[in-house]
């Protein structure tokens, strides 16, 4: 009994605040376990921690394992070996529901349903809490309204999700993650398929979440130039176990960004933080 109380997400949240460390990854091996015994390993040995209040951008070419790492951290896909600790508690020892109270996700998955409203979707963020029957409590409703306000999408509340633009859809999925009320939010390419002003709006929102709402953000992106303006830390993932981390300024100066995205004829200009054609 006492033991289960120690494991409760509320307890973990308090522990997190006390030592400021949100997430610790030890000797993590990620990849896919295909049918039979065939294992595709993307990274063999990741060791890193995430502190509260960080805004981390994961950069790297396609196939480097960014999404796989993101999904491994929430046990959406199992990691191959190693350990993931949330405030000292091993992810393997947490129930799905407990995990859902610690980390929320925004994925690239499309939602095919044609009838769900934005409110219905954000409401699913409250499912780890509340009643068995799916009736929303008054606290749930409050959190949902708050989430719409934070992302500035109050006017979309009763719209059918399917009829929204890609940018609006992304705001709703973000509101869902906010309603889930977790210290950590993971986002898989949150700015993909969104027009340029929309990308900036999303990144600003995420920045606000870190600064004003005590959230910690870990996202993957291909919008490198944009990410460099917001991230407090970068994780660079490449093929063949390449993994580097550091603050953006250091990584730009040391030429690591340039090295990671090394393509014939394209260089990263350290001064204006843009990719340019090599002359």
């Amino acid at each position, binding site marked *: 009994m006492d033991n289960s109380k120690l494991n409760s997400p509320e307890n973990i949240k308090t522990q997190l605040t006390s030592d400021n460390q949100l997430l610790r990854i030890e000797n993590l091996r990620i990849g896919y376990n295909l049918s039979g015994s065939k294992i595709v390993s993307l990274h063999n040995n990741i060791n890193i921690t995430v502190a509260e209040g960080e805004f981390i951008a994961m950069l790297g070419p396609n196939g480097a394992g960014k999404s796989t790492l993101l*999904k491994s951290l*929430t*046990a*959406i896909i199992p990691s191959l070996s190693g350990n993931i600790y949330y405030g000292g508690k091993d992810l393997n020892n947490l*129930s*799905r*529901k*407990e*995990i*859902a*109270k610690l*980390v*929320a*996700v925004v*994925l690239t*998955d*499309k*939602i*095919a*349903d*044609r*009838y*769900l*409203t934005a409110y*219905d*979707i954000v409401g*699913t*963020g409250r*499912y*780890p809490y509340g009643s*068995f*029957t*799916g*009736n929303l409590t008054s606290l749930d409703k409050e959190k949902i309204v708050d989430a719409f306000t934070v992302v500035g999408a109050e006017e979309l509340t*009763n719209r*059918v999700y*399917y*009829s929204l633009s890609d940018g609006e859809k992304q705001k709703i999925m973000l509101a869902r993650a906010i309603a*889930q009320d977790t210290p950590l939010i993971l986002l898989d390419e949150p700015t993909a398929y969104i027009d340029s002003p929309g990308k900036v709006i999303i990144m600003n929102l995420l920045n606000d979440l870190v600064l004003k709402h005590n959230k910690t953000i870990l996202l993957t992106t291909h919008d490198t130039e944009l990410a460099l303006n917001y991230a407090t830390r970068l994780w660079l993932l490449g093929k063949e176990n390449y993994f580097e981390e550091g603050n953006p300024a250091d990584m730009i100066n040391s030429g690591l960004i340039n090295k990671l995205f090394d393509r014939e004829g394209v260089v990263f200009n350290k001064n204006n933080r843009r990719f340019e054609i090599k002359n």
Partner: protein
Amino acid sequence: MISGKHTNVIFIILPLLIVLLFLINLWYGSVVINWIDVWDTLIFSGNANQSSQIIILQYRLPQAITAMSVGIGLSISGLLLQTTFSNPLAGPSVLGISAGASLGVAIMVLLGGAVGLELSGALLILEDLSIVLAAFAGAIVVLLIIIFVSGKVGNAVTILIIGIMIGYLVSAIVGTMQFFSSAEDLHAFILWGLGSFSKTSVVQSISILVITLVVMVATLAFVKPLNAMLLGQQYAVSSGFNVKLLQSVFILISGFLIALGTAFTGPIAFIGLAVPHIARTVFRTSNHRILLPAVVLIGAALTLGCNFISKLPGYDASLPINAVTSIVGAPIVIWVIIKGRRMSNG
């Protein structure tokens, strides 16, 4: 989504419609009974005409109860399967479960006939019951195979494809058995395949109703995970649900309902596929908190309506129920999908 008020009005109209269709099913048939006798029979006043009372209590009442119960069961299973597999075409026939039932019956009727296992006279009742058991056994065997596969695989599309393949396989075996069986056995088997709500006794029909209602209430506990699954497997996992386990549970529940219905009535086409689509269009929502009660009510009403239509030719010749559900169901699905598409685009 439509307003809550609109939803409430439909939820009041539907039960009234069910009561009306239920009474019409008791009143109409090869012999049309006057309404006063229907009423007197139902309240056991003892004033009803003797033969009317027998017709209603022994034939039409169990038939109507069975139709309603099987309609409810198939509609729930259709909804569960469509949500579980994120596929609007999923329904009772796709997982091969009703094909499994027909294999059970084929073994009983066709092979049984071939080895000279003919029952007659008083044993005919036993034969009826053994067909029910054979159908149920066949359906459950296929269901267990699917559950086993879903435990191994986890991916919804893969499970669906394997289910469809098992269906083909089972149908091929049944087809082969039909080819080698006698004309008389074949006739009996085809009759079973056309479906009928009129083969159940009062006790059987009430049993089906009670079991269906119990399963229905149990299903209401799954509103949250069902809604979460509408966002896709990964989002459902991130909301704190064990999706792999839930998939197996939903396949088990729907498989059981299909097996139960098919065993007593033969395979009934289209109800399970059509009703969830009708419910979504009428209530303009995918939220299972509304959809689950909605498919129950619409399923009951539609099946009672189809059963009434099947009796329309009068005399002793009622239309095969499977033909009626297809003729009524297919255009409804087409209409609903075209209408739904236009509304969500416009």
